[in-house]
């Protein structure tokens, strides 16, 4: 091929598209290689039953950082915030909603605890403020705490000042919350068990740990970055469809002249003399490029695509020990209608409904994963995309996405995720939903089950981790994906990592790709 190609981007998810657009806008010739038949990566919806669409890997929308949108002049899709972003099932047909209007939430909570109702507005305001501090960190490369470069010192000072700007009390609280467990965080403030359980579940999202684990305070804040004020879960959704964010990035990328090849799986990254020379495709075809930016996860990239002889054994050791630990299974349901008289407030349908009203139940579900077992009573959360976007289902019909934890990738005694185990878990999830929402099962036309093993096989996610690496404190910011490699440039000249396995990680739309691409540009000029 004679066409000019400066950079190859592996993966056409949000990060890959953001990276490609960033590079192309700087005048580079960019080719994006996507192994699936369509773009979108983890945000891509699939037709899991005739006429029914959903993205098993992205039950909720992420946060698109304003700095990215500004930098790329991206037309940001319109966001809709449901009045009730989180609801918890108390008993069959009985629910406690948490409207993001904190006065309304306090009213709902008062039924269970007057003290908690009083504490709620201050709590949501505080965690919102602290998540806002993270939002700032997530729109620039991770601080480089250990180097001595002047630029980094200035960056650190800036962060220090921003932290102090939170005010004395909130700064101290931030430092306290980040390493602590989400359970302690809530126990300190609330009595109402269903409230604590519902909120705490946000701290263990896609994590192979329970709410007593240190660092779940951080995970809770991470998933609140970009959320509406008063909300304790999720960031609302794109008005124009589940893939509105990738559609916008895709349009931008194409407008800037990016070449996107789907159905094009990269099998190897080619290296000569410690420098990248291109990629080899699964077909055997080789594409030359002096820079390759991968949005696959760090293990898939460094262990799966690069010949290990080019990598320091210490580095390989570190990558092999990244904690992926996929533990989330997803069941997609096609419903012929919503069950009637469920007791679920209509306004809750557009948000997340948690089926776990006790902290101990959440903890026990996590206990199983410690021993390589699937939870007997998994923690299940459901969302109904068809309420948000009627187009994802045939008229009048509905889609339900149920996320179930814990379904560990690694099972005890080397057992595998065979058909029987998958169906058994799906049955358990169905039963749990049917208990909380009576009549649910009668409405199910079809269901599709995704275990971590499926995520690995179908999406190339190491250990089926939707996170590209757990959001534990030793794997975030300047520690992501591994210490020493937190700034997108990998140890081979011309190789960059720009997927969710890099800072700022999952749920922040396109940010890692965008920041990685900026690193590419910086290195090209120097």
């Amino acid at each position, binding site marked *: 091929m004679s066409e000019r190609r400066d950079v190859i981007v592996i993966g056409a998810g949000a990060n890959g598209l953001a990276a490609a657009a960033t590079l192309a806008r700087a005048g580079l010739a960019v080719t994006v290689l996507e192994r699936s038949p369509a773009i979108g990566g983890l945000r891509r919806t699939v037709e899991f039953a005739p006429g029914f669409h959903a993205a098993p890997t992205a039950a909720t929308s992420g946060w698109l950082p304003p700095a990215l949108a500004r930098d790329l002049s991206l037309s940001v899709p319109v966001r809709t915030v449901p009045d009730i972003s989180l609801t918890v099932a108390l008993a069959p047909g009985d629910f406690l909603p948490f409207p993001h209007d904190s006065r309304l939430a306090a009213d709902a909570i008062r039924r269970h605890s007057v003290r908690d109702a009083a504490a709620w507005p201050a709590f949501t305001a505080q965690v919102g403020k602290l998540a806002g501090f993270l939002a700032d960190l997530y729109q620039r490369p991770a601080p480089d705490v250990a180097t001595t470069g002047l630029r980094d010192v200035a960056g650190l000072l800036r962060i220090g000042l921003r932290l102090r700007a939170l005010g004395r009390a909130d700064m101290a609280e931030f430092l306290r919350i980040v390493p602590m467990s989400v359970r302690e965080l809530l126990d300190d403030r609330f009595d109402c068990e269903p409230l604590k359980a519902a909120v705490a579940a946000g701290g263990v999202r896609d994590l192979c740990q329970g709410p007593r684990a240190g660092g779940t305070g951080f995970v809770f804040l991470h998933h609140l970055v970009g959320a509406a004020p008063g909300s304790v879960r999720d960031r609302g959704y794109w008005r124009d469809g589940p893939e509105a964010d990738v559609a916008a990035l895709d349009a931008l990328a194409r407008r800037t002249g990016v070449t996107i090849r789907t159905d094009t799986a990269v099998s190897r990254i080619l290296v000569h003399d410690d420098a990248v020379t291109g990629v080899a495709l699964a077909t055997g075809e080789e594409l030359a490029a002096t820079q390759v930016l991968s949005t696959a996860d760090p293990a898939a990239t460094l262990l799966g695509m690069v010949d290990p*002889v080019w990598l*320091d*054994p*210490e*580095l*390989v*050791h570190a990558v092999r020990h990244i904690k992926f630990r996929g533990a989330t299974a997803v069941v997609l349901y096609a419903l012929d209608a919503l069950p009637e008289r469920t007791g679920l407030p209509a306004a809750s349908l557009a948000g997340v409904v948690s089926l776990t009203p006790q902290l101990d139940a959440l903890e026990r579900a996590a206990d199983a994963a410690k021993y390589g077992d699937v939870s007997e009573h998994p923690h299940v959360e459901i969302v109904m995309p068809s309420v948000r976007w009627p187009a994802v289902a045939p008229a009048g019909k509905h889609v339900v996405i149920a996320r179930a934890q814990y379904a560990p990738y690694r099972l005890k005694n080397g057992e595998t995720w065979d058909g029987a185990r998958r169906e058994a878990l799906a049955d358990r999830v169905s039963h749990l939903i049917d208990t909380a929402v009576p009549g649910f099962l009668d409405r199910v036309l079809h269901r599709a089950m995704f275990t971590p093993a499926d995520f690995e096989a179908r999406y190339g996610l190491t250990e089926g981790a939707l996170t590209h690496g757990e959001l534990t404190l030793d794997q975030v910011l300047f520690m992501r994906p591994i210490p020493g490699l937190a700034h997108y440039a990998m140890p081979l000249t011309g190789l960059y990592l720009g997927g969710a396995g890099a800072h700022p990680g999952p749920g922040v739309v396109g940010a890692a790709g965008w920041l990685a691409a900026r690193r590419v540009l910086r290195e090209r000029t120097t």
Partner: protein
Amino acid sequence: MPLVLKTTPFHPRTAPLVRAQTWRRWAGYQVASAYDPHPDREYAAIRNAAALFDVSPLHKYRITGPDAVRLLDRLVTRDVTRCAVGQVLYTPWCDGRGKMLDDGTLSRLDEGTFRLTSAEPNLRWLTMSAAGMDVTIEDVSERTAALALQGPLARTILETVCPADLRALRYFRLLHGTVRDIPVTISRTGYTGDLGYELWVNGERALPLWDALVEAGAPYGITPAGIWALDIARIEAGLVMLDVDYFSAHHALIPDQLSSPFELGLGWTVSPGKGPFTGRRALHDERTRGRAWAFVGLGIDWDSFERLYRQRGLPPQLPTVAWRGSAPVHVDGRQVGYATSGCWSPLLKTYLALAHVRAAHAQPGTGVQLELTVEHRRQRADAVVTPLPFLDLERKRA
């Protein structure tokens, strides 16, 4: 309760010979420092007859599988792709920064089988280096016993019990043969800088092998020898020793404790043309940039040495065994390095030392001063940078 230290398969033979109970530790084994109270006779055997060393405590790994060459080639600094069957490579290996982890011999036993020896355990590093490769690494240290037969009469003795054509066995080559019907692998290698062989045998056949060699060697003055004698010989031969002359990068606490192959006089082992290996980038840079340190021989000036003692009214006192430690090296009153081993060479009649010096002072003939303690006082003796090895015997490779 088990004994604190392990004993080698030759222990039943060596133990009664250690007349002064001069034992020492070597890699968790109990081995003889010397069989006599002094190593003089054992050293003399190395250079005049044949000395027999029990070198079983060496760590030994057997590496097999389709990716064996790939693994070893990415591990060590020499080009393993060009190692023929029956060839032995002396080679260091490094971490990602190009700093020495260990050194040893790599033998290609057959097309798909290698044996790597090392001073320290390396199973973990081998396993880490083998990530993603189809290769089997076995620690055969305990089941493989090893003897070194070193000295001008080594071949003569071996020929009486081994039918193989030993004259055809070139330096750093090996053959599979027998000694009185005991299967052994014989390599033309050693740690003395003399004509010599190393014999590798299944631990269960260790004692018959010992007996055969001692019996066959008796008319030629074969002498069991210990570490003290070996130490003098290896200093004369300019061979480095891990944990004495350098530290493994895995154990160094500070950057100053790290050494690259270039800094240990092993630049010749860093193949410039070979494919990827650990430390490649750093070593290529160092080759271009130039090393910061050099590893040199020091010959201590006798008159200057004697004068230091005479000033105190004493006759010169020479070390009776090789020392291992640290002695500062100065030029014009400034410290430019440190010696790590030293001994009196009975053959060269010179007090020798092995030293790290800053590259600027590495030219042979450079005059330096070595710090010595003479009668409780620190003194400096004149010394001259001498090319290594101090002793380069024709018969070593003949």
